[in-house]
């Protein structure tokens, strides 16, 4: 019989360099790919893997996150048996914490682990974008008889701050976790529940430890840890440049077909927007656009979010425009990220550079 999985999503870290984008929200609720928030990906992955009990470890400022996740309805987690458990995270504030798997978050929420009848716990962060069936990972976990199975992506670019890399034997057994390398840890792992409970008991007095960076490393020789090579598209958001890149990745048909799979749909909170309306002079090329937009100008190589309005004569290139951004007539934007409700008045020119976009904070009028 298939072992049962309990899901834990850590949504309370903000170790990246995302500036104003994460001034008022955790990375988990950062809008991405036109109609999603980052947390949609781990939640959908868990749902698509048949996981029906998910603990969401929340940051101190969790309003935007809870506004989006609600009671988990979009992921079939509003249910009688199991469902979504909103767990208090121990990080106070949004900034300055880089640990992704703080032990004290698990200690503090030990009850969900104690009460669960699951065999294994699937733990992920909420800053990665990929589409996976954790049942495939579990099958390998069972086959290898591992205590812990860590997901990694081969040859993943190594310039992400705080990235960890796996050192493995030929058979995939992990021998070390390092700060450099090419097999990048996806910040997701499966661990046997009794072992996780043991760690909680043993390390209770040093609860500032990170489960992976400290405890896995320290116990690497005493347990069986295997890597699981994830083959599909994976993107991570930790800098502003990453954020632009991950959004731009969705302009590729290949990436969209790997992420937006009919058999494993990415779910999100549904809103009732009108369809998007294109004007007579709309000139849109290579752009991802959700419903609720009104587009009368030029949009190229960009990702728009719901309710964006582009006036006639405006030109938007290489941009990410979040919900309800309004771009006035004659305005030119290149390599710009507009946070929610930004208004750019007529005939304004703003240009960042490739890899160095300009971010305009929420509710600004320029």
């Amino acid at each position, binding site marked *: 019989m298939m072992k049962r999985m309990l899901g834990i999503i850590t949504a309370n870290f903000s170790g990246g360099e995302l500036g104003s984008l994460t001034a008022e929200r955790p990375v988990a609720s950062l809008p991405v790919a036109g109609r999603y928030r980052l947390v949609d990906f781990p939640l959908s992955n868990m749902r698509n893997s048949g996981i029906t009990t998910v603990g969401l470890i929340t940051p101190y400022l969790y309003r935007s996150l809870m506004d989006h996740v609600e009671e988990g309805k979009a992921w079939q987690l509003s249910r009688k048996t199991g469902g979504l458990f909103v767990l208090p995270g121990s990080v106070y504030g949004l900034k300055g914490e880089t640990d992704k798997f703080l032990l004290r978050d698990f200690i503090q929420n030990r009850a969900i682990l104690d009460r669960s009848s699951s065999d294994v716990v699937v733990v992920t962060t909420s800053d990665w974008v990929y589409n996976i069936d954790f049942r495939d990972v579990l099958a390998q976990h069972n086959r290898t008889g591992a205590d812990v199975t860590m997901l990694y992506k081969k040859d993943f670019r190594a310039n992400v701050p705080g990235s960890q890399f796996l050192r493995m034997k030929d058979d995939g057994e992990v021998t070390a976790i390092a700060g450099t390398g090419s097999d990048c840890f996806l910040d997701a792992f499966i661990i046997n529940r009794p072992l996780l409970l043991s760690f909680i008991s043993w390390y209770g007095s040093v609860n500032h430890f990170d489960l992976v960076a400290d405890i896995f490393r320290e116990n690497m020789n005493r347990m069986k840890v295997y890597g699981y090579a994830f083959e599909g598209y994976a993107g991570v958001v930790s800098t502003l440049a990453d954020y632009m890149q991950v959004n731009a990745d969705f302009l590729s048909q290949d990436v969209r077909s790997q992420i937006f799979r009919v058999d494993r749909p990415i779910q999100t909170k549904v809103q009732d927007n009108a369809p998007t*309306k294109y004007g007579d002079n709309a000139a849109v090329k290579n752009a991802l656009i959700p419903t609720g937009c009104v587009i009368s100008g030029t949009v190229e190589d960009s990702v728009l979010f719901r309710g964006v309005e582009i006036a006639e004569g405006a030109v938007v290139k290489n941009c990410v425009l979040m919900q309800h951004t309004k771009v006035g007539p004659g305005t030119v934007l290149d390599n710009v990220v507009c946070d929610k409700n930004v208004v750019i008045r007529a005939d304004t020119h703003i240009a960042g550079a490739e890899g160095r976009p300009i971010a305009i904070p929420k509710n600004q009028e320029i």
Partner: protein
Amino acid sequence: MRKKECIAMLLAGGQGSRLGALTKYNAKPAVAFGSKYRIIDFGLSNCVNSGIDTVGVLTQYKPLSLNDYLGTGTSWDLDDPDGGLHVLAPYATETGGRWYNGTADAIYRNIDFISRYNPEYVLILSGDHLYHMDYNQMLAYHKQQKAALTVAVIEVTMEEASRFGIMSVDEEMRITKFTEKPKHPDSTLASMGIYIFNWSVLKSALIADHADEKSQKDFGKNIIPRLLGENKRLYAYRFAGYWKDVGTIDSYYEAQMDLLEDEPEFGIFDPNVRTYSNANSSAPHYIGKDGSATRSLVSNGCVILGKVNHSILSSDVTVEEGAVVEDAILLPGAKIGAGAKVIHAIVGEDAIIGPGAVLQGTDDIPVVGDRVRYNEGGEK
């Protein structure tokens, strides 16, 4: 059950046979409309926006897709144990089973459903009309007139009048005469098929009508004339906004093309009047490097690699490279092959226009039915 002041009964069982190929798999209320919606969304959203939290949806013809779409009513906030949305299909009893035989019969057979809410008023609606309306205003009018029945009415042209239930009213708007689809109409005041009844009046009229073997069990033909004959207080409630019964392919097409106007009369873009729908979880739409969309409405899940102008694209439509779509309505899941041309036409749900095929309407609007494949040289 807690007593309700007013509950709604939404008639959604008709075939809509004049929509032809579009109702082969769908009941008319479940036919897609306006890029993001299905026709029933407007009636359900009106109920919710008017604070009506109990809606019986009467189904009969091809109910599978309609039932799927309605679900538990959660998309319209009608998943409420204290009322909410109920799908009411015909059922069997100890004396046998039979289909709903007319609009009044459909309501008659659900007297038990209505009675458990013991409402003061029952709002009867059609699931296939397009309009935004606050039923509270109509209900307030109904109370103010101390009416037994209030019929919402709209002015139509003399030419159109013989398609509708037409009534004559006195200076107080009290109905003096009502004729269903008159050959020689003597008024242009048309029934919109929206009725508010006092439940006690409706109930006894339904029971009496049921016993009348000659009755066609129809609101317009039987119930209203019966109440007029009994000299009950019947009033007309004038409605001035947009209202359309998209009964034919032509009117279905025109009503959607109207949405492409700068300021469409039917305010689906009005932020103050939300139309709820059972939205899907498809990705945002993508317009490719050589694609374009002008003067069009587009929803999630579409991939546009060709040229789209003056058209309505429902969700999950694909327009391949080199394809041209103009003055067209593409329903959910339609696929337009590379180099194909679709001009002045309707392409049904999950229908496929083969690569290079040309589908061009003139005065007649060609319709490729749901799930049909249309290739160069005709349908296959």
